[in-house]
């Protein structure tokens, strides 16, 4: 569990967060959304102990990231958006950093590289951007940390690679779970017996909503000075109704044209079911900060 309370952060004189409170519950794949420059990357850096808050607290399990306790650091991994350009190969790189992570699994790394279709013995600087991204994703997953923070992981991936990305992330959650469970019938799928971890908590920061729409749940939407939304799909679809129709609705919080009509985002007054469209959700929240906060304030306390 990650708990952030009354957090302030600024770069020199530029305030990024003012009095932000936020919780990430264990074992979920969170989607962290927000406009450019609201501090998604900063948030990930604070959680992983790479930036220190000015005021307020960030606590991960029982650790304070800024203290940089080795037992904390061996259990969390932050994968930045920018790729490394070191003159090395993925297999050398992972063996170098793997020693710091007790559940690091080289066999799993090789499997992931195979699945993602990248050669682990090829030098990074001889790879395309997408191949570097995929190599580093394999590295990050193979460390088997309980916390994994991915900053724009699908940027630069081609279309088949995006599908592979979703697959390996979902398998990653499953494999740890199976190894951890006592149901022996399922255990045989596990590639390793060294992983005794919990179901990992993954935070994916992204602008590429379509790439991860079905993968993430809950969704957190950050703004400059507040958290606009932190809700599961189930909560979102119970509070908001996504109407796909041929007309614009006057009551809609947000309306967008889609092929064949409109998508209207309305308050869900009659308890109807609809499919959450994350892009429309994002725009609805962004354009109606206060209204949305009031809609979600009821019964959404963490």
């Amino acid at each position, binding site marked *: 569990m990650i708990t952030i309370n009354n957090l302030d952060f600024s770069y020199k004189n530029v305030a990024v967060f003012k009095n932000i409170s936020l919780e990430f519950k264990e074992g979920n794949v969170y989607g962290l959304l927000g406009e450019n420059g609201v501090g998604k990357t900063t948030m990930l850096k604070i959680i992983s102990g790479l930036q220190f808050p000015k005021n307020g607290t960030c606590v991960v399990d029982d650790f304070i990231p800024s203290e940089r306790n080795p037992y904390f650091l061996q259990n969390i991994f932050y994968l930045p958006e920018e790729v490394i350009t070191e003159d090395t190969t993925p297999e050398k790189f992972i063996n170098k950093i793997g020693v710091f992570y007790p559940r690091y699994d080289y066999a799993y790394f090789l499997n992931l590289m195979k699945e993602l279709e990248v050669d682990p013995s090829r030098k990074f600087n001889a790879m395309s951007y997408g191949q570097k991204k995929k190599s580093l994703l394999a590295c990050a997953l193979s460390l088997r940390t309980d916390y994994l923070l991915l900053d724009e992981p699908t940027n630069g991936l081609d279309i088949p690679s995006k599908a592979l990305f979703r697959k390996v992330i979902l398998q990653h959650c499953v494999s740890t779970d*199976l190894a951890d469970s006592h*149901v022996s019938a399922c255990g045989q799928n596990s590639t390793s017996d060294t992983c005794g971890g919990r179901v990992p908590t993954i935070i994916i920061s992204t602008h590429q909503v379509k790439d991860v729409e*079905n993968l993430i749940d809950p969704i957190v939407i950050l703004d400059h000075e507040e958290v606009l939304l932190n809700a599961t*799909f189930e909560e979102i679809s119970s509070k908001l109704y996504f109407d796909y129709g041929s007309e614009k609705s006057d009551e809609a919080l947000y309306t967008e044209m889609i092929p064949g009509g409109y998508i209207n985002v309305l308050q869900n007054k009659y308890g109807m*079911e609809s499919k959450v469209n994350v892009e429309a959700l994002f725009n609805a929240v962004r354009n109606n900060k206060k209204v949305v906060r009031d809609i979600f304030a009821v019964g959404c306390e963490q």
Partner: protein
Amino acid sequence: MEFKSHQPIYLQIYFHICEMILNDKFKVGEKIMSVREMAVEVGVNPNTVMRSYELLQSKNIVINQRGIGFNVAENAKEIILEEQKKQFIEEELPEIIRKMKLFGISIEEVLKNS
């Protein structure tokens, strides 16, 4: 799995599993995929799949064997067919009747063409 744009994903997975039970891909009395296996299979967050399974369970289509998994209930097919029939009569049939009236199609004509 290809998703439609309007229906909640968890319902689409629910209907997908019903379809697999009707087609004997999941056999009566046998275990179906675990929530997490299904999540990987359809490429969707396990929380979403869990909701589909909860719905299947609440309709007694599958039975949760604690610690083992979900088994297809003995009368699962009857329950599914009953539900789909009800849905057809309540939701699809009125639309068909409306169109028949609009185009002036008689019952006899329908029967002749079927």
